[in-house]
């Protein structure tokens, strides 16, 4: 038991995590490519045309994974942040910082694709649908997190302040989602919801799941690449960074 904890802490130091991440990144890119190609193939060539929404529904093959990932990344980010506060490990804050831009991009994609789906289906680029509205607020939360960290010069303070904001955010996200949904039903929002678009056929579900896996692998690969850059930036003055082969050449 104690052995496991020691091992875990060993990988929690930036110095030992840096090479491990470097080894893992190519594999996640390969997985992302495999799932991505399969997912695209299913979404365009296997999944049949929808009876009511025609070909337009194919947008959900990226909309839903982007929406899922934007929420999932926020929770993962808050978890890292919480770990950082509780255990005072340096890597946790760097991970949270590395995840935020990818999460923001996912939130943006879910908004963008939502709008491009909404235009033909609802006849408007933007509808105050409960999901789109919560996605918009989630996007603001990401931007706030990134802006707060950018405004603080001291890296340790930035990590800790960001961690508190992420934790406050993660408590609020369900409340926001619930309140927006409540607000939406009271005002009798759109009757077609973007997620239960067509009667979910099995092939569509598979396509969505595989695309979600592709997004997931992509996010891990990008976040790990970014965390490696952050480690180099923050540990620039340490000996081990100066001894790295990519620095020495």
């Amino acid at each position, binding site marked *: 038991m104690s052995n496991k904890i020691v091992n875990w802490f060993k990988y929690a130091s930036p110095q030992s995590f840096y090479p491990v991440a470097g080894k893992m990144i190519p594999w996640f890119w390969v997985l992302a490519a495999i799932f991505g190609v399969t997912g695209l193939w299913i979404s365009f060539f296997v999944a049949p045309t929808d009876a009511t929404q025609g070909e337009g529904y194919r947008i959900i093959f990226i909309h839903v994974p982007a929406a899922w990932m934007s929420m999932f990344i926020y929770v993962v980010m808050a978890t890292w942040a919480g770990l950082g506060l509780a255990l005072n490990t340096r890597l946790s804050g760097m991970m949270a910082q590395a995840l935020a831009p990818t999460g923001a991009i996912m939130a943006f994609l879910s908004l963008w694709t939502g709008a491009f789906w909404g235009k033909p289906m609802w006849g408007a680029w933007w509808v105050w649908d409960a999901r789109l509205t919560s996605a918009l607020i989630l996007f603001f939360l990401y931007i706030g997190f990134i802006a707060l960290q950018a*405004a603080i010069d001291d890296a340790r303070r930035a990590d800790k302040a960001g961690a508190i904001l992420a934790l406050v955010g993660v408590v609020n996200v369900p409340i*926001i989602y*619930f309140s927006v949904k409540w607000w939406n039903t009271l005002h009798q929002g759109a009757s077609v919801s973007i997620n239960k678009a067509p009667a979910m056929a099995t092939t569509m579900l598979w396509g969505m799941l595989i695309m979600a896996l592709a997004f997931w692998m992509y996010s891990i690969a990008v976040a790990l690449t970014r965390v490696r850059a952050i480690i180099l930036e923050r540990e620039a003055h340490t000996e081990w960074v100066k001894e790295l082969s990519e620095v020495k050449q």
Partner: protein
Amino acid sequence: MSAVFAIIRRDLLLAMRRKSEVLTALFFFIIVVSLFPLGIGPEPALLRKIAPGILWVAALLATMLGLARLFAPDHADGTLEQMVLSPTPLGLLIAGKIAAHWITTGLPLVLLAPVLGIQFDLDSGAQGILVVSLLLGTPLLSLIGAIGAALTLGLRGGGVLLSLLVLPLYVPTLIFGAGAVEAYISGTGAGGHLSLLAALLVLGGFFAPWATTAALRIALE
């Protein structure tokens, strides 16, 4: 406990000595609310419909005005350090400061709202619900805002950053607060909204001082 009351008394005393800050927020509230009919048109039915939303959004923005100065003066003159070093737990003192902030910004808005409601032709029942919703909601605005004020303490561009952090977190309060009045006007009853608002207030009252304290300790380290 006496230290908590001392903090509240001190902040109220300071607010009395610098009346302009309190009055600015109050007049901001009045002016913003009065601008809407000018922009939209004087039709009473329309105004009645948008009144809850406008009054609530204006209250939210007016609360934001003073937030950046919630901890900044205490930080600048070293009082915050003394609060950290006080034998009384910092969380309690912070709760006291948040209470004082509400008394100086939230409470005046609650008292003023019915007067402005007249401009929007709200009947007395809707006025009552408006006051109750603000009474439950404005403390929540101070509580959530305090977290943002603590996080952005001493940062460049702190004021703008503060609104970026805090406004998204205000969404549930806005929805339930304005929704309560709207629900009353449309005849569905405001009970559900108000009890949810009260539940949020309990949750915020429990967590916000704690998160604010943690954020302040980080800012002071």
